[in-house]
Protein backbone atom coordinates (compact mmCIF):
# COMPACT_ATOMS: atom_id res chain seq x y z
CA UNK A 1 0.00 0.00 0.00
CA UNK A 2 1.44 3.36 -0.98
CA UNK A 3 1.06 6.22 1.48
CA UNK A 4 2.14 9.60 0.16
CA UNK A 5 3.90 12.07 2.45
CA UNK A 6 3.83 15.63 1.17
CA UNK A 7 6.82 17.88 1.70
CA UNK A 8 6.18 21.61 1.59
CA UNK A 9 9.07 24.03 1.97
CA UNK A 10 9.28 24.21 5.75
CA UNK A 11 7.81 20.79 6.45
CA UNK A 12 9.71 19.20 9.34
CA UNK A 13 8.18 15.89 10.31
CA UNK A 14 7.92 14.49 6.78
CA UNK A 15 10.78 12.10 7.42
CA UNK A 16 9.17 10.95 10.66
CA UNK A 17 5.83 10.40 8.95
CA UNK A 18 7.52 8.32 6.25
CA UNK A 19 9.33 6.29 8.91
CA UNK A 20 6.04 5.68 10.73
CA UNK A 21 4.36 4.50 7.53
CA UNK A 22 7.24 2.09 6.94
CA UNK A 23 7.18 0.78 10.52
CA UNK A 24 3.45 0.15 10.10
CA UNK A 25 4.23 -1.93 7.02
CA UNK A 26 3.38 0.51 4.24
CA UNK A 27 5.41 2.05 1.43
CA UNK A 28 5.98 5.76 1.97
CA UNK A 29 5.99 7.78 -1.24
CA UNK A 30 7.48 11.26 -1.02
CA UNK A 31 5.30 13.92 -2.68
CA UNK A 32 6.54 17.44 -3.39
CA UNK A 33 4.46 20.60 -2.90
CA UNK A 34 4.91 21.47 -6.57
CA UNK A 35 3.74 18.08 -7.86
CA UNK A 36 0.76 18.20 -10.21
CA UNK A 37 -0.59 14.76 -9.23
CA UNK A 38 -0.54 12.31 -6.34
CA UNK A 39 1.43 9.62 -8.17
CA UNK A 40 -1.19 6.99 -7.54
CA UNK A 41 -0.88 6.77 -3.77
CA UNK A 42 -3.61 5.09 -1.73
CA UNK A 43 -3.51 7.60 1.12
CA UNK A 44 -1.76 10.85 2.01
CA UNK A 45 -0.17 12.28 5.15
CA UNK A 46 0.32 16.03 5.50
CA UNK A 47 3.19 16.24 8.02
CA UNK A 48 3.99 18.68 10.77
CA UNK A 49 6.28 21.64 10.44
CA UNK A 50 6.19 25.32 9.53
CA UNK A 51 5.22 25.35 5.86
CA UNK A 52 6.52 28.54 4.25
CA UNK A 53 7.49 29.62 7.77
CA UNK A 54 3.84 29.84 8.85
CA UNK A 55 4.40 33.57 9.20
CA UNK A 56 0.97 34.58 7.98
CA UNK A 57 -1.30 31.90 9.44
CA UNK A 58 -0.29 28.29 9.84
CA UNK A 59 -1.07 26.47 6.62
CA UNK A 60 -2.40 29.61 4.93
CA UNK A 61 0.15 29.58 2.12
CA UNK A 62 0.66 25.83 1.85
CA UNK A 63 -3.03 25.54 1.07
CA UNK A 64 -2.34 27.09 -2.33
CA UNK A 65 0.52 24.73 -3.26
CA UNK A 66 0.00 22.99 -6.63
CA UNK A 67 -0.21 19.53 -5.04
CA UNK A 68 -3.21 20.66 -2.98
CA UNK A 69 -5.50 20.82 -6.04
CA UNK A 70 -5.43 17.10 -6.80
CA UNK A 71 -5.36 16.39 -3.08
CA UNK A 72 -8.52 18.33 -2.32
CA UNK A 73 -10.35 16.62 -5.19
CA UNK A 74 -9.13 13.18 -4.13
CA UNK A 75 -10.04 13.85 -0.50
CA UNK A 76 -13.56 14.82 -1.51
CA UNK A 77 -13.61 11.56 -3.47
CA UNK A 78 -12.79 9.57 -0.35
CA UNK A 79 -8.96 9.30 -0.38
CA UNK A 80 -7.69 8.79 3.18
CA UNK A 81 -5.87 11.97 4.26
CA UNK A 82 -4.24 12.57 7.64
CA UNK A 83 -3.06 16.04 8.57
CA UNK A 84 -0.74 16.17 11.56
CA UNK A 85 -0.18 19.50 13.33
CA UNK A 86 0.76 21.80 10.46
CA UNK A 87 -1.01 19.33 8.19
CA UNK A 88 -4.16 19.73 10.32
CA UNK A 89 -3.84 23.49 9.91
CA UNK A 90 -3.50 23.09 6.14
CA UNK A 91 -6.63 20.93 6.02
CA UNK A 92 -8.61 23.55 7.94
CA UNK A 93 -7.31 26.34 5.74
CA UNK A 94 -8.36 24.27 2.71
CA UNK A 95 -11.84 23.84 4.26
CA UNK A 96 -11.53 20.05 4.08
CA UNK A 97 -12.05 20.19 7.83
CA UNK A 98 -14.18 22.66 9.82
CA UNK A 99 -12.84 25.17 12.29
CA UNK A 100 -9.38 26.67 12.61
CA UNK A 101 -6.28 26.54 14.79
CA UNK A 102 -5.13 29.64 16.60
CA UNK A 103 -2.30 30.68 18.90
CA UNK A 104 -2.09 28.62 22.11
CA UNK A 105 -3.98 30.40 24.87
CA UNK A 106 -0.78 30.65 26.96
CA UNK A 107 0.99 32.11 23.90
CA UNK A 108 3.99 29.81 24.20
CA UNK A 109 5.12 26.93 22.05
CA UNK A 110 4.42 23.73 23.94
CA UNK A 111 6.28 20.43 23.58
CA UNK A 112 5.20 17.66 25.93
CA UNK A 113 4.06 14.05 26.16
CA UNK A 114 0.30 14.40 25.96
CA UNK A 115 -2.40 12.04 27.15
CA UNK A 116 -5.26 11.63 24.65
CA UNK A 117 -8.60 9.87 24.61
CA UNK A 118 -9.65 8.34 21.30
CA UNK A 119 -13.22 9.53 20.75
CA UNK A 120 -13.96 7.87 17.40
CA UNK A 121 -12.80 4.55 16.01
CA UNK A 122 -14.91 4.87 12.89
CA UNK A 123 -12.47 6.90 10.80
CA UNK A 124 -10.06 5.18 8.42
CA UNK A 125 -7.19 6.49 10.55
CA UNK A 126 -8.45 5.33 13.95
CA UNK A 127 -10.09 1.95 13.30
CA UNK A 128 -7.26 0.18 15.17
CA UNK A 129 -8.22 1.92 18.42
CA UNK A 130 -11.16 1.47 20.75
CA UNK A 131 -13.40 4.38 21.61
CA UNK A 132 -12.35 5.62 25.03
CA UNK A 133 -8.85 4.20 24.69
CA UNK A 134 -6.23 6.43 26.31
CA UNK A 135 -2.91 6.92 24.55
CA UNK A 136 0.19 9.11 24.92
CA UNK A 137 1.82 10.99 22.05
CA UNK A 138 4.06 14.05 21.75
CA UNK A 139 2.28 17.35 21.34
CA UNK A 140 4.30 20.26 19.97
CA UNK A 141 2.73 23.39 18.61
CA UNK A 142 2.53 27.14 18.92
CA UNK A 143 -0.84 27.47 17.23
CA UNK A 144 -2.78 24.41 18.29
CA UNK A 145 -5.87 25.99 19.78
CA UNK A 146 -8.79 24.41 17.95
CA UNK A 147 -11.68 26.86 17.50
CA UNK A 148 -15.02 26.78 15.72
CA UNK A 149 -18.44 28.27 16.34
CA UNK A 150 -20.77 26.43 18.72
CA UNK A 151 -23.00 25.13 15.94
CA UNK A 152 -20.02 23.51 14.27
CA UNK A 153 -18.73 22.10 17.54
CA UNK A 154 -22.14 20.68 18.43
CA UNK A 155 -22.42 19.11 14.98
CA UNK A 156 -18.95 17.56 15.31
CA UNK A 157 -19.87 16.05 18.67
CA UNK A 158 -23.27 14.87 17.46
CA UNK A 159 -21.86 13.23 14.35
CA UNK A 160 -19.00 11.57 16.25
CA UNK A 161 -16.43 13.54 14.28
CA UNK A 162 -14.31 14.49 17.29
CA UNK A 163 -11.49 11.99 16.81
CA UNK A 164 -9.40 12.64 19.93
CA UNK A 165 -9.50 14.82 23.04
CA UNK A 166 -6.78 16.03 25.40
CA UNK A 167 -6.60 14.39 28.82
CA UNK A 168 -5.68 16.43 31.89
CA UNK A 169 -5.30 20.18 31.66
CA UNK A 170 -5.92 21.68 28.25
CA UNK A 171 -2.48 22.21 26.68
CA UNK A 172 -3.39 24.93 24.19
CA UNK A 173 -6.88 26.25 24.86
CA UNK A 174 -8.61 24.10 22.27
CA UNK A 175 -12.38 24.41 22.49
CA UNK A 176 -13.84 21.36 24.25
CA UNK A 177 -10.27 19.99 24.53
CA UNK A 178 -10.47 18.82 20.93
CA UNK A 179 -7.19 17.33 19.67
CA UNK A 180 -8.44 16.03 16.34
CA UNK A 181 -11.46 16.02 14.06
CA UNK A 182 -12.66 14.20 10.95
CA UNK A 183 -14.72 15.14 7.91
CA UNK A 184 -18.22 13.68 7.52
CA UNK A 185 -16.98 10.64 5.57
CA UNK A 186 -14.25 9.92 8.08
CA UNK A 187 -11.54 9.70 5.42
CA UNK A 188 -9.98 13.08 6.24
CA UNK A 189 -8.58 13.45 9.76
CA UNK A 190 -6.73 16.34 11.34
CA UNK A 191 -4.70 15.83 14.50
CA UNK A 192 -2.64 18.27 16.59
CA UNK A 193 -0.57 15.67 18.48
CA UNK A 194 2.12 13.70 16.65
CA UNK A 195 1.48 9.96 16.34
CA UNK A 196 4.51 9.69 14.05
CA UNK A 197 6.69 10.57 17.06
CA UNK A 198 5.19 7.71 19.09
CA UNK A 199 6.18 4.70 17.01
CA UNK A 200 9.45 3.55 18.63
CA UNK A 201 10.18 2.98 22.34
CA UNK A 202 13.66 4.35 21.80
CA UNK A 203 12.66 7.76 20.52
CA UNK A 204 9.09 8.31 21.67
CA UNK A 205 7.13 8.30 24.92
CA UNK A 206 5.19 5.26 23.66
CA UNK A 207 4.34 3.35 20.51
CA UNK A 208 0.68 4.34 20.79
CA UNK A 209 0.88 6.35 17.58
CA UNK A 210 1.40 3.37 15.28
CA UNK A 211 -2.35 2.68 15.32
CA UNK A 212 -3.11 5.63 13.04
CA UNK A 213 -0.89 4.16 10.34
CA UNK A 214 -1.89 0.53 10.78
CA UNK A 215 -5.54 1.61 10.70
CA UNK A 216 -5.30 3.14 7.26
CA UNK A 217 -3.20 0.27 5.89
CA UNK A 218 -5.70 -2.29 7.15
CA UNK A 219 -8.53 -0.30 5.64
CA UNK A 220 -6.72 -0.11 2.32
CA UNK A 221 -6.16 -3.85 2.15
CA UNK A 222 -9.88 -4.19 2.75
CA UNK A 223 -10.58 -1.93 -0.22
Amino acid at each position, binding site marked *: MKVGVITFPGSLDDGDAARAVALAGGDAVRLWHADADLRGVDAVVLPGGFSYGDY*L*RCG*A*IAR*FAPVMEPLVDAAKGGLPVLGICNGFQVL*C*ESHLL*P*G*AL*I*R*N*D*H*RKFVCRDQGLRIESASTVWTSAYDVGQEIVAPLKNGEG*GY*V*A*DDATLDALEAEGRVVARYLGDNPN*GSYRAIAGVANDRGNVVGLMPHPEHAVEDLTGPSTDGLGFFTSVLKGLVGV
Partner: protein
Amino acid sequence: MARVVVDVMLKPEILDPQGKAVHQALPRLGYDGIAAVRQGKRFELEVEGEVTEERLAQIRGAAETLLSNPVIEDFTVRVEEA
Protein backbone atom coordinates in the same frame (compact mmCIF):
# COMPACT_ATOMS: atom_id res chain seq x y z
CA MET B 1 3.03 54.27 -5.69
CA ALA B 2 -0.08 54.06 -3.54
CA ARG B 3 -0.54 52.15 -0.30
CA VAL B 4 -3.45 49.89 0.48
CA VAL B 5 -3.90 48.81 4.08
CA VAL B 6 -5.61 45.56 5.03
CA ASP B 7 -6.55 45.15 8.69
CA VAL B 8 -7.37 41.66 9.89
CA MET B 9 -8.95 41.07 13.30
CA LEU B 10 -10.22 37.90 14.99
CA LYS B 11 -14.01 37.72 15.02
CA PRO B 12 -15.39 39.00 18.33
CA GLU B 13 -16.60 35.55 19.37
CA ILE B 14 -13.15 33.97 18.92
CA LEU B 15 -10.95 34.20 21.98
CA ASP B 16 -7.87 36.34 21.45
CA PRO B 17 -5.05 35.17 23.74
CA GLN B 18 -2.66 37.90 22.67
CA GLY B 19 -5.15 40.71 23.19
CA LYS B 20 -6.07 39.20 26.52
CA ALA B 21 -2.44 39.08 27.61
CA VAL B 22 -1.90 42.72 26.68
CA HIS B 23 -5.07 43.68 28.51
CA GLN B 24 -3.90 41.92 31.65
CA ALA B 25 -0.41 43.43 31.44
CA LEU B 26 -1.60 47.05 31.14
CA PRO B 27 -2.74 47.56 34.75
CA ARG B 28 0.46 45.98 36.04
CA LEU B 29 2.32 48.72 34.19
CA GLY B 30 0.03 51.31 35.70
CA TYR B 31 -2.19 51.83 32.65
CA ASP B 32 -5.82 51.69 33.77
CA GLY B 33 -9.20 52.38 32.24
CA ILE B 34 -8.79 50.08 29.25
CA ALA B 35 -11.92 47.95 28.99
CA ALA B 36 -10.67 45.54 26.35
CA VAL B 37 -7.80 44.91 23.92
CA ARG B 38 -7.86 42.95 20.68
CA GLN B 39 -4.73 42.19 18.69
CA GLY B 40 -4.84 41.73 14.96
CA LYS B 41 -2.69 42.05 11.87
CA ARG B 42 -2.00 45.05 9.67
CA PHE B 43 -0.80 44.56 6.10
CA GLU B 44 0.65 47.44 4.10
CA LEU B 45 0.57 46.73 0.36
CA GLU B 46 2.52 49.06 -1.91
CA VAL B 47 0.60 49.10 -5.18
CA GLU B 48 2.28 49.91 -8.48
CA GLY B 49 0.42 52.56 -10.46
CA GLU B 50 -2.82 53.94 -9.10
CA VAL B 51 -5.45 52.09 -7.23
CA THR B 52 -8.33 51.42 -9.60
CA GLU B 53 -11.63 50.01 -8.35
CA GLU B 54 -10.78 46.78 -10.11
CA ARG B 55 -7.38 46.69 -8.42
CA LEU B 56 -9.09 47.18 -5.07
CA ALA B 57 -11.48 44.35 -5.83
CA GLN B 58 -8.47 42.16 -6.52
CA ILE B 59 -6.92 43.07 -3.20
CA ARG B 60 -10.20 42.33 -1.42
CA GLY B 61 -10.01 38.93 -3.04
CA ALA B 62 -6.50 38.41 -1.68
CA ALA B 63 -7.60 39.64 1.73
CA GLU B 64 -10.42 37.13 1.79
CA THR B 65 -8.53 34.11 0.51
CA LEU B 66 -4.98 34.64 1.72
CA LEU B 67 -4.58 37.44 4.25
CA SER B 68 -7.49 36.36 6.42
CA ASN B 69 -9.30 33.18 7.30
CA PRO B 70 -13.05 33.93 7.11
CA VAL B 71 -13.73 31.17 9.63
CA ILE B 72 -12.15 33.17 12.43
CA GLU B 73 -11.26 36.60 11.08
CA ASP B 74 -12.82 39.77 9.64
CA PHE B 75 -10.91 42.21 7.47
CA THR B 76 -11.14 45.74 6.15
CA VAL B 77 -9.41 47.15 3.07
CA ARG B 78 -8.70 50.83 2.59
CA VAL B 79 -6.48 53.08 0.53
CA GLU B 80 -4.17 55.09 2.73
CA GLU B 81 -3.84 58.73 1.82
CA ALA B 82 -0.18 59.65 1.90
